[in-house]
């Protein structure tokens, strides 16, 4: 893709948008200004990435460009021109013509993009039949060709969507989009929610198809690493605006906007000798009250007095950046670092004032209050298996067909007191089941789990609450993990009352201390909040505080960062590392994300289909993997070459002048 010449100059752009504004006007709520004045164009044959944290308006922009917005969303201003036709206000019928002429969309994750009661063949007949009058046999031929292009067998034609895996469904969706002979395809988060290895395979397929078929593509993703590796140009979106627009290699090596730089710093290579990770404190602004001045200012470590004014777009080479301070030498503060050997959370210094490490100070204050590390005991699993009966519910319940699935197949492992162990594997590898058995939420079908000399798998239900004073769990989904109706103070408080039996002032003090410990300061302020009033990262801190209320010796963390934006990953990992250091608790860290495993664990266990395929010290497993599955997992990570400095003088202040 490096050989492709810089785009715009060669061809007329295929798609342009100017002054695009999108409003959501929900019933009984304030209007949300999700896209605020976007000017972009995509040249023929280009592969463009659109990145940003969730809620920045990426999907909305993608839908607006494809004219798929529906009420309560509408294009409030601006124009969209596709192939020199203004499609901004095109009626439904003409729009169908445009779609048949090559404007295709692949939706977020694609899991639900297929009609559940229609076979794949039916989908192809609908799409191809609507487009051109073809005989059934011709449609079948075309469909088989399209399926083979996305590496699926013709037999898939006779399957229903529920008989296909998530990855296969996404491939079918791509094949259907290709049936339109598209000239532009908008991919909205094409791989989110898929297994890591499948994600990689789908991205490879997209890249190959693009090269073969030659369509132009817009790939929307929250994952900068994934986009950088797969595109020619990247647009970084923040709070409804494009803040940086650059060729991918240039962005990877020299981001100009602090937001892009910070997003880049949230990526890392888990196999490197030294791994560092940055984060972005806070969260994107509420677009129902668009901020004045630079929207990124509250989270920007460079913000200064000029930032009270809205920054203007400055052209840089073939791209642009919208920031007052560009070009400054951008050094992004890092939150957590790991070199071969012991873990090394970064102390507050340098840019510390802007970095959310209140947690470190608070943890230091609370130090020594926790149980001594010496009382901690090892956790041992011997030959643990778990079978699940698969239930298939009938329409109005009643009998079920039963099958047996072995989620965990003979796992033995030992977590020493105070140790941090990672449990990694793709989806369905049995990680979560194993974690739930360790905390006693599930019972093994066979084998034994012991903590010290306590047989966990033999515990009676009424003895479990006592066990939970020693072993606690941090749940995956901070949105489902908190009861939406209770204040977070109540939620954490219940755990304190139950596990520590505190009342009155002692209780109050402990509650505030815990909030402080997880970096929610001032604690009084946060304790009164309901979950929906907090951001995802803050909620996950509450979830951690609740687990800490029991003062556990063992903490099982099940994908604690997977539902959060990458920008929050470093903060939470940093917090977990600090807590472990200060409480002496051992940590079982369950994840599919090798980078975070590298950063917080000493030992690594790789799980595949319920079996352990490899284990050992984290850095040696990652840096010299021996099992092919581990190799595959590592290969699935998009790698980005990065360096955070910008060559001086690369920026021109005069708009419109080519460099």
């Amino acid at each position: 893709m490096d050989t492709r010449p810089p785009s715009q100059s060669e061809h007329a752009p295929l798609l342009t948008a100017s002054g695009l504004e999108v409003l959501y006007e929900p019933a009984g709520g304030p209007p949300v200004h999700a896209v605020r004045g976007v000017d972009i164009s995509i040249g023929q044959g280009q592969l463009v990435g659109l990145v940003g944290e969730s809620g920045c308006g990426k999907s909305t922009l993608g839908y607006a460009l494809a004219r798929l917005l529906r009420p309560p969303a509408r294009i409030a201003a601006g124009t969209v021109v596709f192939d020199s036709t203004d499609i901004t206000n095109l009626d439904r019928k003409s729009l169908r013509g445009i779609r048949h002429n090559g404007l295709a969309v692949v939706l977020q994750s694609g899991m639900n993009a297929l009609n559940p009661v229609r076979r794949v063949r039916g989908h192809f007949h609908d799409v191809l039949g609507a487009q051109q009058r073809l005989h059934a046999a011709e449609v079948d031929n075309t469909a088989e060709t399209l399926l083979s292009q996305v590496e699926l067998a013709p037999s898939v034609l006779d399957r229903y969507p529920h008989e296909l895996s998530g990855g296969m469904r996404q491939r079918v969706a791509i094949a259907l989009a290709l049936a339109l002979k598209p000239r532009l395809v908008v991919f909205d988060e094409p791989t989110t929610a898929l297994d890591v290895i499948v994600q990689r395979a789908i991205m490879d397929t997209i890249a190959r198809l693009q090269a073969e078929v030659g369509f132009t593509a817009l790939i929307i993703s929250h994952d900068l690493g994934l986009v950088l590796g797969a595109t020619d140009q990247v647009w970084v979106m923040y709070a409804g605006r494009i803040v940086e627009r650059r060729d991918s290699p240039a962005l990877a090596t020299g981001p100009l906007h602090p937001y892009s730089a910070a997003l880049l710093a949230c990526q890392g290579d888990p196999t490197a000798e030294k791994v560092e990770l940055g984060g972005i404190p806070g969260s994107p602004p509420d677009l129902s009250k668009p901020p004045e001045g630079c929207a990124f200012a509250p989270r920007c470590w460079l913000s200064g007095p000029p930032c009270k004014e809205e920054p203007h777009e400055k052209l840089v080479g073939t791209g642009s950046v919208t920031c007052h301070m560009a070009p400054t030498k951008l050094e992004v503060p890092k939150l957590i670092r790991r070199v071969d050997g012991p873990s090394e959370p970064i102390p507050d210094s340098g840019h510390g004032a802007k970095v959310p490490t209140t947690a470190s100070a608070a943890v230091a204050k609370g130090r020594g209050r926790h149980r001594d590390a010496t009382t901690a005991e090892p956790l041992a699993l011997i030959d643990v298996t778990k079978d699940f009966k698969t239930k298939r519910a009938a329409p109005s319940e009643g009998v079920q067909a039963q099958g047996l699935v072995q989620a965990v197949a003979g796992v033995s492992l030992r977590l020493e007191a105070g140790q941090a162990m990672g449990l990694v594997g793709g989806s369905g590898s049995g990680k979560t089941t194993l974690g739930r058995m360790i905390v006693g939420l599930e019972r093994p079908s066979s084998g034994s789990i012991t903590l010290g000399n306590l047989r966990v798998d033999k515990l009676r239900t009424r003895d479990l609450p006592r066990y939970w004073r020693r072993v606690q769990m941090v749940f995956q989904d901070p949105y489902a993990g908190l009861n939406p109706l209770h204040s977070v103070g109540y939620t954490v408080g219940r755990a304190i009352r139950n596990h520590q039996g505190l009342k009155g002032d002692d209780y109050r003090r402990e509650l505030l201390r815990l909030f402080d410990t997880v970096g929610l300061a001032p604690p009084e302020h946060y304790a009164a909040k309901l979950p929906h009033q907090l951001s995802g990262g803050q909620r996950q801190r509450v979830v951690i505080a609740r687990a800490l209320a029991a003062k556990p010796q063992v903490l099982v963390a099940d994908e604690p960062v997977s539902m959060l934006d990458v920008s929050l990953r470093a903060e939470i990992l940093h917090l977990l590392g600090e807590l472990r250091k200060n409480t002496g608790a051992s940590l079982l860290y369950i994840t599919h994300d090798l980078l975070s495993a590298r950063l917080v664990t000493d030992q690594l266990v790789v799980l595949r289909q319920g079996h352990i395929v490899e284990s050992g010290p984290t850095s040696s497993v990652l840096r010299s993997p021996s099992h092919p599955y581990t190799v595959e997992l590592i290969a699935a990570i998009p790698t980005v070459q990065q360096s955070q400095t910008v060559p001086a003088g690369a920026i021109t202040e005069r708009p419109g002048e080519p460099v």
Partner: protein
Amino acid sequence: MRYVLRRLPVLVITLWAAVTLNFLLPRLMPGTPAGAAVAKLAGQGSVSASQRRAIEVMLGVPHGSLASQYWQYLKAIAGGNFGISYTYFPEPVSKVIGAALPWTLALVGTVTVMAFVIGTLLGVLAAWKRGSIFDTAASVGCTFMAAFPYFWTALVLLYVFGFVAGWFPIRGGYSASVSPGWDWSFFVSALGHSVLPAFTILVSGLGGWVLGMRNNMMGVLGEDYIVFAEANGLSPRTVALRYAARNALLPGVTAFGMALGLVVGGSLLTEVVFGYPGIGYLLYNAVVNEDYPLMQALFLVITVSVLMANFVVDLIYGLLDPRVRR
């Protein structure tokens, strides 16, 4: 088909539970229905020992263990021996019911299916044109329509079209001038008599289906596969029918099964108002005359019919939804 086999045990257990409920009801109630029934029958004429026995098996006897009573009862049910009707003395209950059942099946069965089909189509239309005048009118109208008791609608229709306008006969299932049989004049007469009851059931039942289908459609229209189908340039008709309505129908079919009981109840009242010679009117007469053997058997027949209809609906659901098949 394995799906049918899988559903069969549920049907059998449910049927058994219904039969048992029917056995327990008269025995749990205060008083002795069997004694009362026998006493009434005695007033009609002589009651033979076997007739008396049949009633006791159905409604409870003062002697014998519950288990043996249950066994006798099951045997009687299997042989279709429900005892003697007091109202239609000396006809056996089974014969009385046998004469009424076809009327109800023809009327209620046909009209219920019609109401479901028409209501569902209107619901699809309302959702597809959401926010339009048609949608608003349909929603408001149906809410109100569904709120009228069946029997009241029946009375009003009877008054307006039967009594005032005189377009349709106001009572019975066929006119006195024809006799039941497979001939044309009887058919025409029966059809004329069924117009008002049918219209009542249709009008009262329609609203629920329209509203239900509209809501289901609104839910489905937000699904990813609808957006994707639209993005793929499918015609609005295809999207509306083959993608949206087809999926919105599934909860509708489940609801149809669950609402059958309600529809049957309403239809019974309609029959009473029109003096239609079906099961409902029969039940009414049985209750008014305290004809317990007839009443009890009718309850069993109605329940079993609804359960069977539900089973059929379940099977249809299996045909419509590939996810529960296999």
